[in-house]
């Protein structure tokens, strides 16, 4: 026989202003199975909780209903109080008399009637509640960081410095990402490489970090605290244990005309190559698609010159699996090339560059050693035009969103140009200058006021080449949209920041969501910016949307803090409000018929198949099984199950029917 206690809270006046709380308590006291009912001004306060605890002990209650505010607010509070008094916390339910009743109705009879009904439903439900125990899941304290740009580097170092193990996977032969390509960085103009390379080295040398370059995630299984990652180690064709990084092979390789990715095609590299002199690790890989030996079967020059015998031509890709507890996605972004704009020449003009290419020209480590020179003829451009929003804010041909970083780097580019070419003239065509950020507006003003960069408000309609000059046809909208024509020696397009080509595939491998532009999606745009919708998988940096370095680093430390927080426990406690497939005595074992419709329905891939085996090991029956680590308690499977074999703990069909019947059996 149930002995239910009902506790009605006034919530100051939040509830009692429109609901007659005393009457609700009195009516509840008359309900079948209710042993004790009372009301109190602040049930969540210490005296309120004591009231509940005492009643449990004194009256021997078997269930508790608290009629108060939203369970989102105080369910944990009241459940804890019950547990302290010796009652299983899942035998405590809350009826929301505030948001669902007092706040949304006038003060009158019916409002109180409704409150009584709400309480009655929960009284009927709680009679069917079963004691449940929180689920404990062990945690593997090792994080996988995917992507070795500044985001991945920061996250990995933070986690490693907190004493946890990190595996970093980077698809290129070196870590560093886009930041390693930058010349100087806004808004302080410090040298990108100078602040980045020490951190790259730190990653390589950190005892807690295992670095896999030229590697990609192949497969990810499991759930928070218990992932299993399969990593593909692409064949480098060089044995890193033997290679000393002397670089002899790269000087002798006869295949020298391969556009360098690091220099954005403005320089050439060999088939066996390290992307740049400060690369980490500073050892080469063979790019098989461009290697003479792999393509034509003859060459092996590198093998001949290598003093340590490190070259290995025949090794295939290798696969390793790692147990990990959390994942940080830090795969970054990309920029559009110049070729997608018909009106800017379809990419056919040698001196119409992307911002990233300009960074390479301006960088001391670049193909011109930091001098701004035209790729076409090596001349120093005397007149240069920068075009902001190239492909950004352009639903017709590009992407509708603002890429956020280009206003700032364009100001930086114009500034660097003026610093390097004193008699040069620079023009920036812009629509708006978006310089929100500490010292950002001041930075742009400096470009305009001190360095004399000409800002023209208008977009450029077209560019064409004539006699070695680029005719840029724009308009000055602040002069009544007067057409402006500039004969430029070089044009730099601030091309849109877009997601990485492989981002969608990676997201699907990990079952995390992504947005319409294939950027990884955060779990909540405001309150969960570094979480994904899959527990245990976090994200940071430009893989979520284009962003600058300060923001990337802040976000990376945020993601690291989440991982460190997760790893601070050895076990994970989860609410037991999950689906379970019923079990019964042989020969039935379960009403589950093994159709596994639920498996296809589950959005979290939490359902597996389980074979029930006889003593001799033969399979008697295959049934569905819910992985308690993965199940999020959404209930989709319950709706799909045709044999009613799957049910939600804490929200069972029986409990739901009891609530509904309580209303119908007036």
């Amino acid at each position, binding site marked *: 026989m149930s002995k239910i206690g009902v506790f009605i809270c006034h919530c100051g006046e939040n509830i009692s202003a429109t609901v007659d709380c005393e009457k609700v308590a009195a009516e509840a006291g008359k309900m079948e199975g209710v042993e004790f009912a009372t009301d109190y001004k602040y049930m969540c306060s210490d005296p309120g909780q004591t009231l509940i605890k005492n009643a449990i002990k004194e009256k021997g209650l078997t269930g508790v209903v608290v009629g108060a505010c939203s369970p989102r607010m105080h369910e944990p509070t009241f459940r804890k109080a019950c547990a302290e008094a010796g009652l299983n916390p899942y035998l405590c339910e809350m009826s929301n008399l505030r948001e669902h009743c007092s706040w949304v109705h006038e003060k009158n009879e019916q409002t109180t009637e409704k409150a009584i009904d709400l309480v009655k439903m929960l009284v009927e439900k709680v009679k069917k509640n079963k004691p449940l125990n929180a689920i404990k899941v062990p945690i593997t304290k090792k994080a996988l960081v995917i992507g070795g740009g500044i985001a991945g580097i920061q996250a990995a170092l933070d986690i490693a410095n907190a004493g946890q193990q990190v595996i970093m996977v980077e698809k290129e032969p070196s870590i560093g990402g886009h930041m390693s390509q930058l010349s100087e960085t806004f808004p302080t103009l410090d040298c990108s490489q100078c602040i980045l390379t020490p951190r790259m080295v730190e990653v390589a040398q950190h005892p807690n970090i295992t670095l896999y370059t030229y590697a990609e995630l192949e497969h990810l299984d499991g759930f928070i605290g218990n992932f299993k990652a399969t990593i593909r180690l692409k064949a480098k064709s060089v044995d890193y244990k033997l290679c000393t990084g002397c670089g002899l092979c790269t000087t002798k390789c006869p295949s020298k005309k391969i556009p360098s990715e690091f220099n954005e095609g403005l320089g050439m590299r060999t088939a066996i190559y390290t992307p740049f002199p400060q690369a980490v690790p500073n050892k080469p890989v063979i790019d098989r698609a461009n290697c003479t030996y792999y393509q034509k079967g003859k060459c092996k020059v590198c093998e001949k010159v290598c003093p340590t015998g490190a070259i290995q031509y025949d090794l295939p890709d290798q696969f390793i699996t790692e147990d990990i507890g959390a994942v940080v996605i830090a795969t970054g972004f990309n920029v559009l090339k110049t070729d997608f704009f*018909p*009106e800017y*020449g*379809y990419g*056919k003009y040698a001196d119409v560059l992307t911002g990233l290419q300009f960074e390479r020209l301006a960088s001391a480590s670049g193909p011109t050693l930091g001098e701004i020179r035209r790729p076409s003829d090596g001349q120093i451009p005397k007149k240069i035009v920068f075009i902001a929003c190239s492909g950004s804010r352009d639903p017709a041909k590009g992407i509708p969103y603002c890429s956020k970083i280009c206003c700032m780097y364009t100001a930086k580019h114009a500034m660097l140009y003026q610093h390097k070419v004193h008699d040069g003239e620079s023009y920036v065509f812009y629509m708006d200058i978006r310089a929100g950020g500490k010292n950002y507006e001041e930075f742009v003003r400096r470009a305009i006021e001190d360095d004399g960069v000409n800002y023209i408000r208008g977009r450029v309609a*077209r560019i*064409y*080449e*004539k*006699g070695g000059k680029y*005719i840029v046809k724009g308009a000055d909208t602040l002069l009544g949209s007067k057409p402006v024509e500039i004969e430029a020696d070089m044009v730099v397009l601030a091309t849109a920041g877009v997601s990485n080509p492989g981002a969608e595939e990676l997201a699907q491998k990990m079952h995390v969501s992504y947005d319409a532009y294939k950027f990884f999606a955060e779990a909540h745009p405001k309150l969960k910016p570094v979480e994904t919708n899959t527990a245990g998988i976090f994200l940071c940096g430009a893989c979520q949307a284009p962003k600058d370095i300060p923001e990337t680093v802040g976000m990376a430390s945020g993601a690291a803090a989440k991982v460190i927080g997760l790893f601070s426990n050895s076990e994970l406690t989860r609410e037991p409000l999950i689906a379970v497939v019923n079990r019964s005595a042989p020969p039935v074992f379960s009403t589950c018929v093994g159709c596994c419709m639920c498996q296809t329905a589950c959005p979290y891939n939490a359902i597996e198949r389980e074979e029930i085996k006889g003593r001799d090991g033969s399979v008697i029956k295959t049934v569905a099984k819910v992985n308690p680590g993965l199940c999020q308690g959404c209930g989709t499977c319950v709706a799909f199950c045709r044999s009613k074999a799957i049910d939600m703990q804490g929200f069972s069909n029986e409990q739901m029917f009891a609530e509904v019947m309580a209303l119908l059996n007036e």
Partner: protein
Amino acid sequence: MKKLGFYPGCSLKGSSSEYAQSVLAVAKAFDLELTEINDWNCCGATAAHNMNKELALSLSARILALAEKQGMTEVVVPCAACYNRLTVTQHELNKDEALKQRVSDIIEMPISGNLQILNVMQLIDKYVADRLEEKVTTPFGHKVACYYGCLLVRPHNILQFDRLEDPQSMDILMKRSGAEPIAWGFKTECCGAGFSVSRTDVVAKLSGNIVKDAADRGAEAIIVACPMCQSNLDMRRPQINEYLKQKIDIPVLYITQAIGLAVGLSPKEVGLQKHFVPVEFSEQH
């Protein structure tokens, strides 16, 4: 012999008769029979388009309806302006059933809207291309600036012909006829279109910029596929030269004239004598 419908349009019957002449001569050289749509009318051109949209649609629709009635499925329309008007009209009618019905009532003829409308590049591409090289007897060995203008390529989503800003179809055909097409900056800029009479000054300026860019880059001829472009660049050359304060005498040929010469037709057969700017190098052929 392949039979196709043919819409010459008014210009080809008058001021651009050499275009019609060369289209027909080239068609004949490649065993294509072009049958004129019987009793066709003017498409209305810019005038109707500017003054009365419904009239513009109806005039073009009458042509489409006549072609359909006469059992044609493919119609060759050499004039870029007519090609544009007819294609856009068919598109708009197909997009909006109610409009199609209304226009059909106005022209007192049914219209189904499934004609294949071909400009000359499409005609050559579709029916001549694979035989072009073998027929070339006197390669058109000159540097040419292929000028497309507005009406062949825009609106892109409706015409679906070639690519914007830097189209290639004419360049490719000219190259295969032995010419050397140049890269230049005014392939699809406007020549001043229908302002030839009412705003000759505008035409002189716009066409002047085009002619100048071609000349500066060493083009020996400008190749066009539109009577309006041709007459602006050719017949208005005195005004152009006056605007440029420079005498530029590179001729302006229809693509069918150039190809005609390449496949061995005589200058007379393709109507070169009708040009205002003399086509001088034709003597060498």
